């Protein structure tokens, strides 16, 4: 049986029919064509599929689309401004080489966006705790940690 649901994705209400077992990650990618959200392990370990649900980062592979009917969701596609200018977090990742292959990056960007909204000037320990649920197999994390601190600076400059 299919269910008709509405998700407010990146500010736009999207109506979609999905079976109950459709994971939010698959709904975003397959039903809505938003392939920026990546799917790594599908059991909550890698963090690639992290999106913002009502502003809080969650695993979209551990959430059913039907459960979040009516909710507001932000994916990596929604982080940049409406004029296409990258967000502070996105620019910091580019500037600090916080990515190599880029597969894990959408998850990191969503996680870090929420982290800095909560805690605008995190310490090193808070950054490491904050990103501990996201795996990166390329960078060795050093540049990601640098990017988070740089993003905090950029955000501070802009407000």
């Amino acid at each position, binding site marked *: 049986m299919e269910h008709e649901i509405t998700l407010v994705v990146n500010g736009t209400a999207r109506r979609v029919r999905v079976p109950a077992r459709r*994971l939010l990650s698959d709904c975003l990618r397959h039903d809505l064509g938003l392939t920026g959200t990546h799917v790594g392990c599908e059991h909550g370990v890698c963090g690639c599929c992290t999106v913002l649900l009502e502003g809080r980062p969650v695993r979209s592979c551990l959430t*059913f689309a039907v459960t979040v009917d009516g909710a507001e969701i932000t994916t990596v596609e929604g982080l940049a401004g409406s004029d296409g200018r990258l967000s502070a977090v996105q620019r910091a990742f580019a500037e600090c080489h916080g990515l190599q292959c880029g597969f894990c990056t959408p998850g990191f960007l969503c996680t870090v966006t929420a982290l800095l909204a909560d805690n605008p000037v995190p310490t090193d320990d808070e950054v490491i705790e904050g990103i501990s649920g996201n795996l990166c197999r390329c960078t060795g994390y050093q540049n990601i940690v640098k990017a988070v601190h740089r993003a905090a600076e950029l955000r501070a400059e802009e407000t």
Partner: protein
Amino acid sequence: MKPPPFEYHAPRDLGAALRTLAEVDGKVLAGGQSLIPMLNMRLAAPAHLVDINRVGGLGASEVTPEGVRVGALARHAEVERAAAHPLLTRALKLVAHPVIRNRGTVVGSLVHADPAAELPAVLAVLGGSVRAARWDTAGGGPVLREVPAEEFFVGPMESALGPDELAVSAFFPALPEGSGAAFEEVSRRHGDYALAGVCAVVTVGADGAARARAACVGVGAGPVVVDLGELGPVRRAGWKAAAALVREATDPEEDIHATAAYRRHLVGVLAERALRNAAREGAAARGA
């Protein structure tokens, strides 16, 4: 992988949720941070899923001098931020990662009853309880019962809840006056389930005498609770011997992550650390 198909129920109130559970052989979905991985890996394939996320009134927590009652939909992160109970708050920081805690629920962790999980041990060491509700079809109304922690954790991944029951809240009793608490664990990676862990509560009486209770995770079929009783003056208590008693009470199993002997060794080390830290905090709280 993808979850197997199931029939989906999304009740709007508690009565509807309980009636559904009385009618069908359903699995309850709250935060889904343990259940959905099990579905994705096809370790579980329930015919019916009862999603309680829209049931009103289950998200609230209530703090009284007696303790904290946590509603079935209270997320780990909310309860952690509320910081209403020192041991619960400390344990929550050890549960998976912050992103998982945004969605996972405290009561869900209890019902999941993973022997390596922190929250069952916290409920057990405090002597808390879980409130279960079911629909009485003959009477046409909900029936509640309070299940004490020592009866709630039946075995690995098994709680005392009946198939038609819903855990609506859990009660974590406040620490007695003059108490300190600690949670110590060792895991292979930050955020993983622990190889072994020990939480301890040490209560220092007005006479300066210490009483201690500990609960271990990852080394038995459920939380292993050891009531160490009266241990003499807090400053001269024999924590090493007490930790040895905790260690002897556990019967760890071997798996690919650690041998049974290593786990037992860890319990001894962690128990002593937890007891000493809890005692220090208890002594400070008592002003001893």
